[in-house]
């Protein structure tokens, strides 16, 4: 009796303990993320260094020494919009007094030359790396020019005979050692020369050199990529033996190592900063550069104090020109005064323009701050990056996430995404936005993700062939192909491209993701395979030019993504008067498919949804200086874009004749086309295309993978369309059944 009682009580205790611990799966609505509970945060402080540069001036090279910033400034001389040449002068900017002393002499270099590096020598002279570029031969000739403080030439070292040939003829970087020697970095070779130019040592590397740095003792290290093994390797260069030894194992890819005055080693990539442990050969992640308001970090002149404070000079560019700032990064305790509400954004890649937007938001919004968690900084393996990001988002550790075709449906199913319709309705009039685009992005009436810009997938084609067609069905496709079997038909006429075009866009003809059903054993799919089989495995010849093929009338259709007026203008020029647009086979709308350029979703469990929405609003609203990456969802910005694109700029040429200024050139191997601006006809056509689009572009990567894998034997002529379709049907059916 007693034993049974003890047994029963033990079991009850275990069950109660287990249930109470398992209840940790539910997150309290007031809980914060693990990171936001951290007592410290890295914060950056910027001090602008005003060199008084105008729009025609730029910074060529710089070095900070003893509180003075030495900078080589390139002054582009213009007269009546005519380029007259460039002058290079030395600036000495006192970082304490903020006074800038500009040399009254210019640096004596040839025309079409530029200065890529500057070294302030201990004897008061300056060593400059000069690249003299020959526009006729497209070759660069390097030299090291040593000047006195009064601008007189003290020495010149011609480097043209020192480098190698081919890839090793271009000087990628230069390192000045304390003993006066100079190390030259080429693509897969280092050469050490003395101050008089004589070669001291030469080391060829197995790897393609990505990054290189000198430590405080002038030891040279580099990180390279081995083309044969496909691996990255960090090595130390020994000029005495002429060999490279492995070094700094465990560094993130592309990282450079810095020694701090605190005796520790730090590693920096363009994206993140780490603490490197030489004993365990591991790199501990400290912060993402974006979280200290640095877009990307390429400066290798970091100074790290004893308390871990980091100093460096940061160059950034925007439409107004170049900005130079002295940056200090400190690890600070979170207090009530300096605390802001943090919005954690999860991704594994960030576009440059999103980075700039995050920095702009963080600097201007006093209430919220975007903290980026880039999983590519934390894990090397892509699958691990994605898995961890998904786990963190479903666990409520991220407030905002980058949405793509792969994760969107999974997040919706797990009920992780906030419906953004109430936010849109509260802060915008629907008529101010492309509402049809927003509706296309909805799922079951809810807007789970939003993008500030979009593109349109459509099919361009020859007007005389497509005539008044509104949609192109698969039977139309096959019939057209058979009719024009002697022509290339596509600009890149291979089986892979044909399959890609046919399925990538029109996959929803065979797959009903909503009802988890599919049907590949049908005439339309057999037509797709037959269509694909009419193309060759490879392009017709090595010098084949797809654009020439379009111009010669050999291309009948060209499926493409239209995300700018440039695209339609350029392709319109290629097709000539014979261009029209048709849509993909859909049940409603004009068949043009809306593609979200960069979609975001807000976590339904986030405590800072408003902060996340504020950031998304800043993307949607944009600024005047923004570069347009796709068509803006906000109509006022779309109209601004039209105004800018329709403005044709002109200049006066050497003969005094007014000429149109090109806004960009598009080219292939044999054709170069210039874009001068959008025409009203072009704008009306694109606007009609957008207004009539009601379907969003969506595809499932997994299904595409299965199809591409199974179609191979058919393409090799080993299986019939029916056999291939049967296997695809079986595999895709399982995939869809799982998600039901």
């Amino acid at each position: 009796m007693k034993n049974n009682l003890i047994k029963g009580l033990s079991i009850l205790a275990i069950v109660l303990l287990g249930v109470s611990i398992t209840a940790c799966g539910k997150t309290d609505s007031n809980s914060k993320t693990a990171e936001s509970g951290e007592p410290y945060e890295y914060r950056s402080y910027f001090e602008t260094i005003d060199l008084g540069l105008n729009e025609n001036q730029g910074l060529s090279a710089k070095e900070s020494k003893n509180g003075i910033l030495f900078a080589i400034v390139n002054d582009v001389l213009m007269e009546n919009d005519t380029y007259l040449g460039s002058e290079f002068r030395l600036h000495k900017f006192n970082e304490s007094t903020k006074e800038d002393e500009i040399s009254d002499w210019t640096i004596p270099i040839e025309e079409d030359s530029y200065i890529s590096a500057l070294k302030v020598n201990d004897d008061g002279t300056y060593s400059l790396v000069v690249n003299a570029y020959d526009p006729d031969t497209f070759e660069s000739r390097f030299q090291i020019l040593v000047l006195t403080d009064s601008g007189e030439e003290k020495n010149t070292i011609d480097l043209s005979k020192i480098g190698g040939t081919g890839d090793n003829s271009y000087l990628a970087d230069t390192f000045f050692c304390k003993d006066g020697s100079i190390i030259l970095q080429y693509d897969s070779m280092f050469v050490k020369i003395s101050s008089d130019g004589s070669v001291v040592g030469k080391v060829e590397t197995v790897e393609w050199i990505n990054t290189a740095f000198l430590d405080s003792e002038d030891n040279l290290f580099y990180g390279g990529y081995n083309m044969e093994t496909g691996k990255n390797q960090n090595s130390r260069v020994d000029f005495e033996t002429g060999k490279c030894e492995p070094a700094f194992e465990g560094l993130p890819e592309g990282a450079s190592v810095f020694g701090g005055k605190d005796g520790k080693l730090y590693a920096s990539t363009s994206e993140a900063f780490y603490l490197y442990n030489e004993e365990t050969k591991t790199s501990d992640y400290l912060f993402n550069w974006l979280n200290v308001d640095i877009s990307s970090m390429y400066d290798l002149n970091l100074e790290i104090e004893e308390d871990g404070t980091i100093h460096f000079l940061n160059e950034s560019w925007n439409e107004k020109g170049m900005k130079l700032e002295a940056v200090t990064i400190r690890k600070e305790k979170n207090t009530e005064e300096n605390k802001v509400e943090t919005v954690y954004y999860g991704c594994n890649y960030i576009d440059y323009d999103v980075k700039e937007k995050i920095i702009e938001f963080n600097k201007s919004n006093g209430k919220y701050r975007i903290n980026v968690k880039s999983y590519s900084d934390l894990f090397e393996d892509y699958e691990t990056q994605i898995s961890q990001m998904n786990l963190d988002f479903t666990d409520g550790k991220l407030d905002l996430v980058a949405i793509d075709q792969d994760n969107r449906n999974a997040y919706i199913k797990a009920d992780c995404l906030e419906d953004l319709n109430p936010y849109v309705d509260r802060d915008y009039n629907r008529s101010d936005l492309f509402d049809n685009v927003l509706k296309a992005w909805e799922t079951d009436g809810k807007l789970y993700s939003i993008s500030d810009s979009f593109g349109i997938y459509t099919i361009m084609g020859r007007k005389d062939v497509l005539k008044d067609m509104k949609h192109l069905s698969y039977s139309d496709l096959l019939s057209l192909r058979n009719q024009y079997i002697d022509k290339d038909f596509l600009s890149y006429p291979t089986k892979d491209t044909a399959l890609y075009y046919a399925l990538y866009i029109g996959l929803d003809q065979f797959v009903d993701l909503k009802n988890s059903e599919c049907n590949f054993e049908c005439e339309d799919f057999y037509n797709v395979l037959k269509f694909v089989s009419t193309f060759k495995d490879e392009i017709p010849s090595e010098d084949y030019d797809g654009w020439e093929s379009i111009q010669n009338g050999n291309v009948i259709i060209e499926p493409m993504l239209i995300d700018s007026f440039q695209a339609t203008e350029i392709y319109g020029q290629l097709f000539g008067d014979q261009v029209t647009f048709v849509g993909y086979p859909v049940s409603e709308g004009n068949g043009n498919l809306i593609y979200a350029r960069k979609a975001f979703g807000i976590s339904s469990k986030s405590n800072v949804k408003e902060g996340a929405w504020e950031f998304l609003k800043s993307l949607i609203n944009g600024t005047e200086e923004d570069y347009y990456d796709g068509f803006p969802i906000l109509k006022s910005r779309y109209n601004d874009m039209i105004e800018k694109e329709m403005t044709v700029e002109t200049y006066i040429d050497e003969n005094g004749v007014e000429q149109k200024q090109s806004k960009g050139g598009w080219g292939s191997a044999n054709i170069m086309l210039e874009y001068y601006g959008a025409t009203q006809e072009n704008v009306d056509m694109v606007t009609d295309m957008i207004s009539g689009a009601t379907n969003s572009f969506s595809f499932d990567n997994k299904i595409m993978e299965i199809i591409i894998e199974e179609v191979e034997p058919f393409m090799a002529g080993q299986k019939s369309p029916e056999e291939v379709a049967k296997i695809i049907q079986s595999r895709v059916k399982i995939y869809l059944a799982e998600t039901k």
Partner: protein
Amino acid sequence: MFLAPSLIGVFLFFILPFMVVIYYSMVDNPISANFVWFKNFANVAKNGAFKLAGKNTLKFSFVAMPLAVILSLLLAAMLDRKIPFRSQFRTFFLTPMMVPVASVVLIVQVMFHYNGAVNHFLSAFGVGKIDWIKSDYAQVVVIFLFLWKNLGYNMILFLAGLESIPKDLLEVAMLENANGWQIFWNIKIRYLSPTILFVTILSLINSFKVFREIYLLTGDYPYDSLYMLQHFMNNTFKSLDYQKLSAAAIIMSLVMIVIIGALFLVEKYVGKDVEE
């Protein structure tokens, strides 16, 4: 007190995670965590992919497992006799255990690919090409792979079991003019019943592990007949559907408990007189 470290370990690494799985199987999603009790189980039971996976797994287990037991027992019985090259045969059957899985899969791919060695051999006899891994023959390939990998180990277990049968009993039977079959069926099988149970359970567990080879051969979504329960669970994990995954895992473990319980009962009945 002396059991405490083991109990703590078992609790932390087995019981507690299992309770977490039960919890996840009874909520709607990890975000809102509303209890839905057995709704997830009902959804999983109705799910077409789960039904297919369950059917394939059971079919494979109930074909491969008996074959693994019977064939290895016969091999052991054969090698228990004094035949020529006995130790060489033993080594030959044990060799597959030492080969890494990836190498085994590579060999199977080379042999059973649409353009592989087996089709090439069959074409010499006028037989058309068979897509072994992407057709209804796929389970035949996997059963062959499973038997090739596991027969050796099972055979060793049976050999050890045969060694432990009292020799005097066998001598008495021979003196009593019992034939080979009578000795085998009435004495050896009876004494081997615990070993048979052990080998059967081991083969059952190994039959679930065959997912590893199938995954390396065919990826996440194989042809119909190769889609197993672990594919279902692997894929639902990747698609963040933890509720479905947890419910499926619990259903699978309940089925396993029933099967193994039945095996124990059979062994208890068959081996009763041996123990006495």
